Every structure is written in structure tokens, then in C-alpha cells.
């Protein structure tokens, strides 16, 4: 897999640097609403968690889900319905929404892992579109094109109508989600995921039930996406069809790639860049959101495949000939001649040809 060449080893920085980065990250997370409009700050963290959830699949397992809007969106609806109907504190509503997202993800994952590579992306995209049509048709529950409106911010009777305070109420939940993702990546389970990304056949030969691992990480990822989507719905007070539409799936993919896939924290940066840009365009009254998104896609994929965080890591990599780079790990670009540089996998895919 070429993706794996872009994802470099995780032990790049010394302990000191890592602590400094962690402190900076936390300071940013807690300080953001002081210098950014609080709802936008919350959007950044929510989309950040969403992108990190996607990265568990894309960067760490080598599976591109192009249908993650289904989980972000279904949780947004479920969270909204729970909050409206029950009046429970919003933490519980969001948890409920995330569970719903995970439940929807289970059958989708079990079917999607039957195909790999590019097919996986197409199949997940198609299933997400199914979820979109269901949300569109099921008007009595989702409100159809009007969306679900008037989602309350109930939190033990506290007044959270001020977005500044709501940010701090919601932040711990999102940070917990991020910690959970970190925990998954640095667990034995996470190492198996990387093994599956690097060489599925060998992982299988070593006795790991590859498909079961893929389903498990898919459901985990959907749960985290649901957590993010639920908070987003509470923050905005509504859930709309936009949340389950394929452009949302595309948006989270571009965040992940722009930030750097397989870097865990990179996608948060990607989310920060995209959300800030969109906010800037909206404020400036420039209506060219998708042109911009498309252009970022094209430029990132053509010229900047490591992403922001991946590039930083690459620049600060140890240059003393460490064993990790010995295998030509730096050489990202194979020969651009398509007919010369086909991987065996590519040939197998092509062998099913016309």
C-alpha cells in the first residue's frame, strides 16, 4: 500500500517535545473561545474528532470510508430526538446518539468489508446515500427537508444558552473521544490495525481475523463520529439533511488528508483549517465553498499527500540513518509511468477487467 509509505513511525519526537505539544494542544483547546467565535471553536473540535475517527480507518487500517456522514448525521438526528423527547442532560443524549450511529454502522461494516480498496470506498458511499434517502423519506422523525429543529442544551439545569459556556461544557466530551482514539491507536488492537494496513495477507496468516478487526474498528470509528455529530447537533440546535449528505463525507475526508492521515492529531489541524476557511468565506459573503473544497482536494492529493502534520513529522524526522528510513521510506513517489509501476494488488484488481 502506498498510503503506508506516507505514514511514518509514531516514535518521532522525544518525550520533551511530546509533552510540549500536548500542553500546546490543551492550551489551544481551552483557550480557543477567547479569540475565536465560540460556536466556530466548537465546530473545529467537533469536526476534529470526526476527522480523527475517520483517520482510525483511513490512516491506521488503510480503509477509506466515503460514507462517514451516515454516522455523524444519524447521531445528530438521534441525539436531537433524545434531547427533545426526554429532556436528559445533553451528555446522555449525545452518548445515545453515538450508540445509534454504532448500531447503524455494524451491518454496513459487515457488508462493506466484503470488498477492499477502492470498492470499499464506493460501497460505504452508497450505503451512506441509503441512510440519506431514509432520513429524507422518514419525515415524521427527521423532519425531512426542514430538519430537526429546537434541540435543547439541557445540562443539569445550567444555563448554557451562551455559546462561550456551552463550549466548556461540551469540550470534555470531545476530548474524551480524542483520548479514546489515542488509546485505540496505542493499544495492541491498534498495532493489529496497522498490520492489516501494511499487509492484510500476512496479518491473516498470523492468525488475526482480519475482517472482524475491520468491523470492530469501523464500529468504533462510527461511534466517535457519532459523538462528534451529536455535540454538533446540540451546539447548532438543529440537525439537517446536510449532515447525512455525501458532501459531508467528502469534507471530513479532505480534513483528514489535509491534516495528514495516520498522524492522529493531524486531522484536527485539517478540521481547523477547513472550518476557519469556511467561516471566513461565509463572513466575507463569498459563495464558493465547494470550489474551494474541491481545489483543496486536488492540490492536496497532487502535491501534498503527507498533509500538514505528516510534513512536519517528515521535516523533523531523525536523519542519522535510523532503521525506520533504511528501506527507502523517504521515497514517496514511485516511477510515474503507470505501466511500469503497478503494484501486485493493482494488477489483481485489473485482472478482473473487461
Amino acid at each position: 500500500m502506498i498510503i503506508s509509505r506516507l505514514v511514518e513511525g509514531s516514535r518521532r519526537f522525544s518525550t520533551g517535545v511530546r509533552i510540549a505539544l500536548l500542553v500546546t494542544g490543551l492550551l489551544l483547546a481551552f483557550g480557543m473561545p477567547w479569540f475565536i467565535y465560540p460556536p466556530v471553536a466548537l465546530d473545529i473540535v467537533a469536526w476534529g474528532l470526526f476527522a480523527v475517527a475517520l483517520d482510525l480507518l483511513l490512516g491506521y487500517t488503510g480503509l477509506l470510508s466515503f460514507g462517514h456522514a451516515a454516522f455523524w448525521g444519524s447521531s445528530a438526528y438521534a441525539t436531537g430526538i433524545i434531547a427533545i423527547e426526554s429532556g436528559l442532560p445533553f451528555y446522555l443524549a449525545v452518548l445515545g446518539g453515538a450508540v445509534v450511529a454504532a448500531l447503524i454502522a455494524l451491518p454496513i461494516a459487515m457488508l462493506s468489508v466484503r470488498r477492499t480498496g477502492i470498492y470499499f470506498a464506493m460501497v460505504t458511499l452508497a450505503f451512506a446515500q441509503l441512510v440519506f434517502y431514509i432520513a429524507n423519506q422518514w419525515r415524521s422523525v427527521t423532519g425531512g427537508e426542514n430538519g430537526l429543529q429546537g434541540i435543547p442544551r439541557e445540562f443539569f439545569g445550567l444555563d448554557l444558552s451562551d455559546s462561550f459556556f456551552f463550549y466548556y461544557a461540551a469540550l470534555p466530551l470531545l476530548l474524551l473521544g480524542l483520548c479514546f482514539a489515542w488509546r485505540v491507536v496505542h493499544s495492541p488492537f491498534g498495532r493489529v490495525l496497522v498490520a492489516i494496513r501494511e499487509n492484510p495477507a500476512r496479518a491473516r496468516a498470523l492468525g488475526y481475523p482480519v475482517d472482524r478487526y475491520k468491523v470492530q474498528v469501523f464500529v468504533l470509528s462510527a461511534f466517535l463520529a457519532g459523538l462528534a455529530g451529536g455535540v454538533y447537533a446540540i451546539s447548532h440546535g438543529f440537525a439537517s439533511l446536510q449532515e447525512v449528505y455525501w458532501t459531508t463525507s467528502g469534507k471530513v475526508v479532505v480534513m483528514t488528508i489535509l491534516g495528514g492521515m495516520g498522524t492522529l492529531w493531524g486531522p484536527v489541524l485539517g478540521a481547523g483549517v477547513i472550518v476557519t476557511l469556511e467561516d471566513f468565506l461565509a463572513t466575507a459573503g463569498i459563495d464558493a465553498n465547494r470550489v474551494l473544497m474541491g481545489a483543496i482536494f486536488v492540490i492536496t492529493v497532487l502535491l501534498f499527500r503527507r498533509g500538514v502534520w505528516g510534513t512536519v513529522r517528515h521535516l523533523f524526522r531523525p536523519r542519522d540513518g535510523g532503521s525506520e528510513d533504511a528501506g527507502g521510506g523517504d521515497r514517496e513517489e514511485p516511477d510515474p509511468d503507470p505501466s511500469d509501476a503497478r503494484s501486485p494488488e493493482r494488477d489483481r484488481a485489473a485482472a478482473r477487467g473487461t
Partner: protein
Amino acid sequence: MDALLQQLFNGLVSGSFYALLALGLSVIFGMLGVVNFAHGAFYMLGAFGALVLLDSFGLNWWLALLLVPIGLGLAGMVVERLFVHRLVALDPLYNFLLTFGIALILQDLIRLKYGVASQPYDRPDVLGGSVNLGLFSYPKYQVFVLIFSIVISVLVWLVLNRTRVGMIVRASTERAELTKSFGIDVRRWITPVFGFGIALAGLAGVLAAPMRAVNSGMGGDLIIVIFAVVVIGGLGSVFGSVAAGYIVGMLSAVGNLYVPALSQSLVFILMALVLLLRPAGLFGREEGVLA
């Protein structure tokens, strides 16, 4: 009964668009291993191409049917040379993402120029009115679309299977290295085949202009349905993609008659069933070793 037959016929007509689009997607995938997300956007450009030719140059639909696919085919070749080509050697996901970006740009540029409202396009005079098909009468234009799409599909199949060019394309699809060792320059065929696939999308767009809503979003949702169609048919198989196109068209139309709430979802439910029972697709060959 008549209603069912008529609905099946409607399904075949909408299936014609699925089939033409799936055909182009399949041919491109076969030759380059690229799943072209921008296929729906080029279909949309095909319809707008017909519109622009009529409004700005006074060229009628028949000329558009000839000129627009040629123009878009050339544009496709440029896109292949400038962008797609650079990523072909990498993981196919990169080209999927690249073409997704291109699709977003094209779709939004058209939206900025024309808005989201549908543009009117009159059907050509000769194909106005309806024709009696025995059991029911049917708009002449729709009948033409169906026949035309079948003719194109058969022609493409014949070219691939009965000509020397087709043989080279199939050989480079299956074993590029081996084909090269026979002294055939595989690279020469990649760009034209990409352009040809795009031309087919443009052709479908021109066919759609007089009977479907012409707007910037017409290709966006459609391409996802086409993805489901090719998963059902087996993306590597040209015949499978075309057959699945007509099948899905008829299924949605019949579904529309009996369970209207589900009509848009049926194709995805069928895809789920196919994945469950025959993951390689109805007409696809099983993958040897899972990667």
C-alpha cells in the same frame, strides 16, 4: 398489467442512462484502474454543453449529440494528461479523491453560473410526439434514447471484443507487463480510453438534456447510484455494468409503482444483497486472493 409494463419500459429508459454511465466508468476502470468520481460531473457538462451550443451558437440537438461528446472527450484527455496520469502509479484511492475534487469544482462552477434552477431544453422536433407500442403509446424521444443506448453499448462491446484495438485494450487491462513484452505500447492507449469514457458520459448528458432536469446537481447524486450499479454488475465487467444498469432502472421503476417510499433506496438494498450473496458482483469474477 399495462401499468406494470409501462413502468418497466420507463425503467429501461432510465436504465439507459445508468448503462451508458456505468459503461464509461467501467472502461476507464479497466484501462487505468481509476474510479472516476467526476463521471457524473461530465454527464452534467454534457447536458450543459447541449444547452450552450443551442443558446449561444444556435446548433441543434443532433449536432450537439455529435460535438459535445467529442469536445468532452478531448477535455477528458487533457484532464488525464494533466492530473490523473500523475497518480495512476499510486494507490487508486488518490485518483478517486482527485476526481472527487474535480467533480466538486465543476459542479459548483456551473451552479455559480446558472444557479440551482433547472434549465429548459426542448426535445428535437423529429422526436416529438408519441409512438404506439401496441399495448400503450409512448413518447418518441424516450424510445429513441433506449434504442440509442443499446446500440452504443453493443458497438462498444463489439469494438472491445472483435477489433484489434479492443484486443489491445483488453490485453493491457489484464496483463500490462505481458502486453508490453509483446511490443505493444500500452501507454499510448491510456489517454484515448480515458477520453472515450468521458465522451460516453457527455453523450449520456446530451441525451438527458431534453427529458431530464438540467441543473448543476444532476450528476452528483446520480454518480453514487452508478457506483452501486457497477458494484452490482461487477466493475471490471463491461457487460455486467451495462446489464446492471438496465436491471437497476427497471427495479427502481417497478419499486416506484408498488413501494414509492423506497424507490430511491432499492438500488442500495439490491447492492447490499449482492454484497451478501455474491460480493464480486452479479457478472464479476471472484477475486482470487483478498488483498
